[in-house]
């Protein structure tokens, strides 16, 4: 094909489209049907995902979770939903989130339990008359501002995002388990399938799309609240404004971003 010097815009466009058509027809013969499918379908999907990612700017957000202790009824829906949503092994040794029951007895004794993370509910274990007070505490990764797990990871496989969530790159984690040792909250476990460290991500795959984490979504009493601390209209900002809040193990200077409303001093 000879390209004339005075090629008009219309001619140029026609030729380009013509070339594209021919290329599309020729492609199956060159690289097989599968490649075309991947080319057409895959390319569109990637474009859609890319658009979504471009629209999301992590530096504009700072996520946190709030827990109203007095609202939690210990139903375990959150822990169950979390396992389903995040493909957490079902065995009772692996949890991204779990619920603890505290029973403070009259005889100055505290009993804490979390059978199967609270997923199956809490059977009565003490005589009601002996209990001074009792409450439930949902636990999860505290997404610390100063995360000890990130500090100790030898290869940087666990890291803090700009929107304040601690994530793990499971393609990169070497499975040394140093982060599990460094977490003061017992929030991490080694996934027996991937052999890499795993923990709560605030359902990052959901929150970047504007959805709530699964545990917050299913909580029947709205004991769990999730929101963006950088957004004035966020329920988290309201929670912070209206309540006395506490974090877990504040003396360790990890600066958690899971805030508890009316947390009892017994909780560790």
């Amino acid at each position, binding site marked *: 094909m000879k390209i004339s010097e005075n090629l008009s815009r219309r001619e140029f466009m026609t030729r380009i489209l013509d070339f594209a058509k021919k290329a599309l027809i020729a492609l199956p013969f060159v690289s097989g049907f599968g490649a075309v499918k991947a080319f057409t379908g895959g390319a569109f999907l990637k474009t859609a995902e890319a658009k979504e990612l471009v629209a999301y700017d992590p530096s504009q957000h700072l996520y946190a979770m709030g827990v109203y202790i007095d609202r939690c009824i210990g139903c375990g829906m959150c822990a169950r939903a979390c396992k389903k949503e995040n493909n957490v092994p079902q065995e*009772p040794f692996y949890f991204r989130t779990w619920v603890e029951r505290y029973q403070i007895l009259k005889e100055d004794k505290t009993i804490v339990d979390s059978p199967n993370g609270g997923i199956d509910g809490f059977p009565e274990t003490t005589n009601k008359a002996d209990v001074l007070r009792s409450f439930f505490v949902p636990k999860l990764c505290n997404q610390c501002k100063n995360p000890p797990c990130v500090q100790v990871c030898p290869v940087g*496989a666990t890291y803090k995002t700009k929107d304040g969530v601690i994530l793990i790159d499971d393609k990169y984690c070497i499975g040394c388990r140093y982060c599990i040792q460094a977490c003061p909250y017992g929030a991490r476990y080694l996934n027996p399938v991937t*052999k890499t460290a795993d923990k709560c991500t605030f359902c990052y795959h959901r929150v970047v799309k504007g959805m709530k984490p699964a545990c917050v979504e299913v909580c029947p009493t709205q004991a769990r609240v999730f929101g963006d601390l950088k957004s004035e209209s966020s329920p988290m900002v309201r929670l912070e404004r209206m309540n006395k809040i506490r974090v877990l193990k504040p003396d360790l200077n990890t600066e958690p971003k899971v805030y508890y409303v009316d947390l009892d001093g017994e909780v560790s």
Partner: protein
Amino acid sequence: MESLNERLMSALQQVSGYIYPNEIELHWSLLIVIYPFITGLVAGAFILASLEKVFNVKELTPTYRFALLTALSFLFVAPLPLLAHLGHPLRSYEIFFTPNLSSAMAAFGFVYAWYLMAVLLLEVWFEFRKDLILWAREERGLIKWIHRALALFSTDVSEEAVRFDEKAAKIITVIGIPSAFLLHGYVGFIFGSIKANPWWSSVLIPIVFLASAIVSGIALVLILYTIVTLLRSEKIDMKCLDRLVEFLFYAVIIDFSLEVLDFIHRLYQSEDSIKILSQMVCNKLFVSLVIMQVLLGTVLPAIFLVFFRYSRFPEELRRLAYFISALLIEMGIFCTRWNVVIGGQLFSKSFRGLTVFKVEITGFEGILMSLALLALPFIILFVVLKILPPWRISSLPVDKN
């Protein structure tokens, strides 16, 4: 073989009090006990070698080269338990390529490489270069070529070159002492810097690790020197052995004092973790800490060492007493590592309960694997002693200038 789930399920039944649900699996097991044990032996053996070279303790000359080769053989094995323990050993190279500089563990690759390449291999080379060349001159066949290759085909054994070798070895030893401190102090720091764990989190841990490393290194060289000399049907240099025992005793006293200091400090400060730690020491760690580490591994052998060192018993009996004491001390140091690593994971970070540790027999983290890893440095040492016999003196003189 019990599956992981079965093991965890049976552990779940034996938990006392409350532990976080993710804490049922004990994450650092037998292999991570062996890792600081082996690096401790390396650092200790090297520091013993340096006593002769830098501090001119001439009585220890028979053990100088021996201690160096022991340190080298154990250093080759030091990273293996770590590697075997990883969930993804094939990704381990990332520690070298993309280290996270805020991680104590990321320094491992560099500290290890420095110690192996810049200290031990260089020192061994300078120490043996002259002999390698002289041995090669009187040898034939494969061993001649091995010795020539190990000397990196250098041939200069003039007095001047030999003087340079000696000087170089001395300088490397001087650099090596802080490096040995770094190697093992750093291993202690891996544990000591974990603020989430009150059993580990202590500034004294790296120093205690160092002191116990020196103890274990001297005891190991004493044991190996005795065995190898007897196997060679040679006479044991009693002056050397007495001096070794003296240094071993000093090291035991320093190590024990530091550990007692750490213990008293914890007890006196009585922080929020003290209740659960006391429960752990009185129940789960009673045998391994109080009986095996303190009584059988420290107090008893320390008394033995002093008693037999200054008694007038016949040499053979003294040698036997030294040997048994060193074995007990070695067992005690292994228990020290066990109590730190396993002990640090037996209590919950909620400080409300204790869990259990069941040792596996087979499997990557099992007893068999651990025994194999502990036997490997001895096999390496056997081969190294065949190639570089520290006691062999060439009949040829060095070249005159």
